[in-house]
């Protein structure tokens, strides 16, 4: 009998030949690409290679984008029947599927997430959002939201860098289905797939001005939020910026939805299916490098299974394949930016200095790029900063509980309330716990599962409003009878 050999997987890189990245990009306004005035670089966070120069929109670009959206709303989009709007959405969804590999490769290059995730999660889900909302476009009267609903008009949409294309789909698809036109601003570090989406809008022959995309940084976002020609603001990002936006729109007539931060509890009861719970913990906090607002970043373990779970979790974490995001076998890719890496490193140091016991999976990192090993902190309590602040990285804080009620109290003891996870083989316990937990999304025996039919959003400082499902439609309609 031969001796066993370590089954190292040879590199299996996805080819980047399918994407053509231009040296510079402009804005997409009124159906055309408009040359920008100022530019800033966008890099591949796995290599620090400059991929392209992205235009920085100032007042004039935002003004013309909003004007184009207004004009399109008045002259075309609001005049089309739901059925006709639906056709455009179906067409966009189909083109996204046809160009799925191109989107996946571009997303991975620009964001640093593993190609397996962009290929299997981000892009298929983005297309699914368009398909789902395409179906609603001609059935809005039957959505249970009343028969006299109307679109807001022009929606200003600001999206984050963690799921660039998927967040675009979450925003653009319901807005168009309900009859709004949009001005979208992608995140500063991840504009490329939004600009490829602009090409898809051209390919689908979407009427000019229905979708406008202006790229830029926070200053561009502020121009959009404060623009008098915007009727509705939809924002996904940090709670800090969410509060600024809420203040800015408070004295105006603008509608607003906010999808903000989280510090979700992932609660493992002693009767859970342990091996699947381990997978759920890993998927909960290491999915997308932990750059997930609903990440299960606080693990609550029942006292009697702490040793078993931690031992198994460390074995499992050591198997997470960290490295080149373009390799099809990579599980954990690059941290999206140097700035984010510094924030994760900083909060991890705080965790150590506050007495948390740190354990990181052993990893060999590529020489360049931004990397952080999958990490857990044990001995964490509610009083630790790493149990309270959103780290937005592959860092898990482990807390313990003795009684189910203690788990609920600890889970709810946070200003956030975006998501929570319950692991138990006992159905009655799952139902009881899901009624106690103050979070917008509660997963039982799974985590980080997304579907366009399911509403997503937060309690407390995790946000206002819902995205997805019938609930998500209401965010883009007025005349619901409760304004």
């Amino acid at each position, binding site marked *: 009998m031969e001796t*066993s*050999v370590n089954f190292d997987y*040879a590199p299996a890189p996805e080819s980047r030949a399918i994407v053509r990245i231009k040296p510079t990009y402009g804005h997409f306004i009124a159906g055309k690409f408009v040359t920008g005035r100022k530019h800033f670089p966008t890099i591949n966070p796995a290599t620090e290679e400059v991929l392209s120069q992205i235009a920085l929109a100032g007042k004039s670009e935002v003004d013309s984008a909003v004007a184009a959206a207004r004009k399109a709303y008045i002259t075309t989009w609001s005049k089309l029947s739901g059925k006709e709007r639906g056709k455009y959405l179906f067409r966009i969804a189909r083109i996204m599927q046809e160009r799925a590999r191109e989107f996946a490769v571009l997303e991975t290059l620009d964001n640093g997430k593993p190609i397996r995730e962009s290929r299997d999660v981000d892009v298929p889900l983005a297309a699914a959002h368009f398909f789902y909302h395409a179906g609603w476009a001609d059935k809005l009267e039957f959505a249970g939201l009343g028969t006299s609903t109307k679109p807001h008009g022009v929606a200003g949409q600001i999206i984050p860098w963690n799921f660039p294309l998927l967040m675009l789909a979450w925003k653009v698809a319901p807005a168009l289905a309900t009859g709004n036109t949009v001005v979208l601003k992608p995140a500063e570090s991840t504009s490329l797939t939004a600009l490829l989406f602009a090409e898809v809008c051209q390919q689908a022959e979407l009427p000019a001005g229905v979708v406008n995309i202006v790229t830029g940084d926070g200053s561009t976002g502020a121009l959009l939020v404060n623009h008098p020609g915007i009727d509705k603001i939809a924002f996904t990002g940090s709670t800090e910026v969410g509060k600024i936006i809420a203040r800015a729109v408070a004295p105006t007539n603008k509608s607003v939805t906010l999808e903000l931060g989280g510090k979700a509890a992932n609660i493992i009861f002693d009767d859970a*299916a342990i091996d699947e*719970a381990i997978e*759920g913990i890993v998927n909960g906090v290491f999915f997308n490098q932990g750059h997930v607002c609903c990440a299960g970043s606080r693990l609550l373990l029942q006292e009697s299974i702490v040793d078993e779970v931690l031992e198994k979790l460390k074995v499992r974490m050591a198997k997470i394949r960290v490295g080149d995001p373009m390799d099809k076998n990579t599980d954990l890719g690059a941290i999206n930016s140097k700035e984010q890496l510094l924030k994760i490193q900083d909060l991890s140091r705080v965790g150590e200095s506050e007495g948390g016991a740190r354990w990181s999976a052993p990893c060999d990192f590529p020489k360049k790029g931004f990397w952080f090993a999958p990490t857990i902190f044990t001995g964490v309590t509610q009083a630790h900063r790493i149990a309270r602040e959103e780290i937005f990285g592959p860092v898990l804080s482990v807390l313990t509980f003795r009684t189910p009620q203690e788990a609920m109290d600890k889970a709810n003891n946070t200003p956030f309330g975006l998501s929570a996870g319950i692991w138990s083989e006992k159905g009655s316990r799952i139902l009881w716990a899901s009624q106690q937990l103050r979070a917008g999304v509660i997963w039982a025996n799974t985590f980080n599962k997304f579907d366009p039919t399911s509403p997503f959003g937060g309690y407390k400082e995790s946000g206002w409003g819902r995205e997805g499902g019938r609930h998500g439609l209401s965010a883009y309609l007025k005349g619901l009878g409760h304004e």
Partner: protein
Amino acid sequence: MNFYGLVDGTEASLKKYLGALSGVDQVGADARAAMLATRSIKTSSKRWAIDTAISMVDLTTLEGADTPGKVQALCTKAVRPDPMNSDVPSVGAVCVYNDMVRIARTHLDSIGGEHVGVAAVSTAFPSGRASIEVKIQDTQDALDAGASEIDMVIDRGAFLRGDYIGVFNEIVQIRELCGTRVHLKVIFETGELVTYDNVRKASFLAMAAGADFIKTSTGKVTPAATPPVVLVMLEAVRDFYTMTNTRIGVKPAGGIKNTKDAIKQLVLVNETAGPEWLTPSLFRIGASSLLNDLLMQRMKMDDGYYASPAYVTID
């Protein structure tokens, strides 16, 4: 037998032991197996995986129409899977019905195949529907004929009605018959146990009773060795190693027909039980048509093109 100190042979101790096992969430197990199926195994690792998979094959013929000639041909192929290329490793064993054991052993020994085992399917294979006396006699027959490995089936009827101690005692008796020299593989027929909870329970039951290997299926029932079932069994042997410091082998059988399927199995092993299990002494694949696909993929890697099926032998 002390059953690793886990049970004392009484029904009460067995119930307590099995009752302490955590459940398996079906959705989660399916998702994990599906994720591992996306691993992309290329170039040097694919080559290594193909040769490793060949060395793990239990080359099987279990037909009513089997003839001595067919079994001899199978043995020849087992020793030297590609007659034109001596670099190809021998398979792990041949797997036949009892009456073919002596024919297989004699032929293997006569062609320099002493290193290839002969596995006999016993205990009223495939249904297991016979008295324990008959099962013992069946196994003794195979041992007398020179079997080096016994693939026994459990009594699924007893298992499903909750007579775990009955199943346990049968395995213990066959184990005693096999002694320490002959490898005992215990077949669950997971397609009949249906749930992953049952698969996990059967795994721990068989391991405590003295199995050297736990095996998914007879090949006569579908579904057979699905990736999630193998995942659950690999988790069981990994956990059993933590408890007892003993490594038990796993043998998926049935439905693994091509190289892609086989490599998926090796990925499951690597990322679940761990690389220590990537040896024919701890992982076997029960198959018949798989070997030819492995050989054709191997030729393709060497030559750069797919050969006609005429370049591999039909039996």
